[in-house]
């Protein structure tokens, strides 16, 4: 089977950052592969190594800058990648439906039997694209999967869904399916030097909306980011000052008052 993995390059804010307009200044963001997607890639590559997946294709919606991140997914074992971008996305806050428009078109093209998505993107934290995509393309799905055992012959994925409070739901999902992958599902590998070299030769197909038979109107967002600000801290923490020794000394006093270490 073919496995499609949706990946996203996300920005992580530095400890000190400035907000410019309605986003964090790009100079104060470190761009990296979304953590959840790292686990999704690993799951797909493991399926390939087990002889279950014939091909692993990574797809992203992102500007040219995102190629570096996509290249990491290739270095970890994805066979090739599709990068979708269009001026229509520039400076907008894409809604779930717009992303699904894009991924639906890619699914039509690639015809995967399994789509793996990270549970959420670390920057926007919607956690919705995978399940919305499943609904659109008529696949079944499971959200927040932290254990995966794929039985290709039976045409099912046996998964655990990580519910709140230390409870896991054991579920059997019919293929084709979209699974949203939780961190901890596996141990994402580091890209090897050999993998990194090989990734240089792998294809990243730069694709725009027209290539997918879409128009900018199709991906017009229903959401507009109108403000971004640092939340007011309602902290009433006593900040303990001084060098490490002084701070530790004062904290030790506090802890002893609370009966710790007595």
């Amino acid at each position, binding site marked *: 089977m073919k496995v499609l993995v949706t990946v996203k390059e996300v920005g992580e804010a530095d400890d000190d950052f400035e907000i410019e307009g309605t986003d964090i200044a790009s100079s104060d963001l470190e761009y990296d592969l979304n953590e959840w997607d790292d686990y999704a890639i690993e799951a797909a590559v493991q399926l390939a190594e087990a002889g279950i997946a014939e091909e692993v294709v990574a797809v992203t919606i992102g500007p040219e800058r995102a190629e570096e991140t996509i290249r990491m997914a290739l270095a970890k074992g994805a066979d090739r990648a599709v990068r979708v971008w269009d001026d229509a996305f520039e400076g907008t806050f894409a809604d779930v439906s717009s992303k699904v428009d894009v991924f639906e078109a890619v699914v039509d093209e690639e015809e995967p039997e399994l789509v793996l998505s990270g549970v959420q993107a670390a920057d926007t934290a919607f956690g919705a694209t995978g*399940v919305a995509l499943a609904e659109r393309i008529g696949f079944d*799905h*499971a959200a927040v999967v932290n254990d995966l055992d794929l039985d290709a012959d039976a045409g099912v994925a046996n998964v655990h*869904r990580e519910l709140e409070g230390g409870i896991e739901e*054991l579920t059997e999902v019919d293929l084709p399916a979209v699974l949203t992958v939780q961190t901890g599902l596996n141990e994402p590998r580091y890209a090897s030097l050999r993998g990194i070299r090989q990734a240089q030769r792998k294809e990243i197909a730069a694709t725009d909306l027209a290539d997918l038979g879409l128009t900018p109107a199709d991906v017009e967002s229903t959401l507009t980011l109108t403000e971004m600000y640092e939340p007011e801290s309602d902290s009433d923490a006593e900040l303990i000052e001084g060098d490490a020794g002084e701070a530790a000394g004062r*904290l030790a006093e506090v802890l002893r008052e609370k009966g710790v270490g007595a």
Partner: protein
Amino acid sequence: MSDVLVVSEHRRGELRDVSFELLTAGRELADALGGDLHVGVVAGDVERFADDLNRPGVDRIHAVANGEEFDHTVYTAAVEALVDRIDPAAVLTPNSVNGLDYAPAVAERLDLPLVADVLGFEYDADDGLTVTREMYGSKVETAVAVEGDRFCLTLRGGEFVPAEGVGDAEIEPVEIEAPESGARVKGFEEVGGGDVDIADADVLVSVGRGIGEEENLELVEELADALGATLSSSRPIVDNGWLPKNRQVGQSGKVVTPDVYIAVGISGAVQHVAGMKGSDTIVAINTDPNAPIFDIADYGIVGDLFDVVPELVAEFE
């Protein structure tokens, strides 16, 4: 088309707290829209759940008695049927693991704009709906304007006060036909267990991503020993396999309420805070002065744990 539909959540025979928080949020939004508050309860012992959800502010409760436990196929079909009946402007669901297993499908099927992990909202007839949500790991808050007059929101738990008291809602059974599900729940498993129950500890030393490498765990183990405390952790430490799952504090791990909680190298993501905010005294040691953990800490040291922790160990030896 000014009504609000709230979809309640239950698990293994119990309504979850977020259901009652949604009633409060739903009432606020219904007031702003000038409509009624409807509550959907799907699967399980719907009559008992409906009685419990009948709290002040609720106008009508729709009880859909399909199945026992959560099944996203049933939930999606039920919400679709209820939207068809009620024609609401807004559908509100919890931003929970199960909420995220059906709300995006509902929004997609009904062509509703979706905003996930909503902390608050404002509505007025001229400007429409604006919601508040976080980005970049809770480092910033944003306002998001939603186009159109219908929408689906998933609400973060713990942001609204749970509705209390007894209301006078009409309770109505609803029959729906749900298609056969392609995702079948086979059972549940409690994870954790093991040698230690961190929920029993009076003092927890809890370690997070800031520890960097597995071999550095020794440092916090020494601290826990010196203080007579139990060692716990945030999610990444367990994801990495450095500590077993029964040590994890947070939404998907254990909820703890020790006398003293010492967070070492933990930034304080919302999922973590959900598991420890009830601690009597919270101490945070972190290099990032903007880390959200300091918002809930009683005592904080902005500094490098590799400098501070050894000094603290020495204080107690």
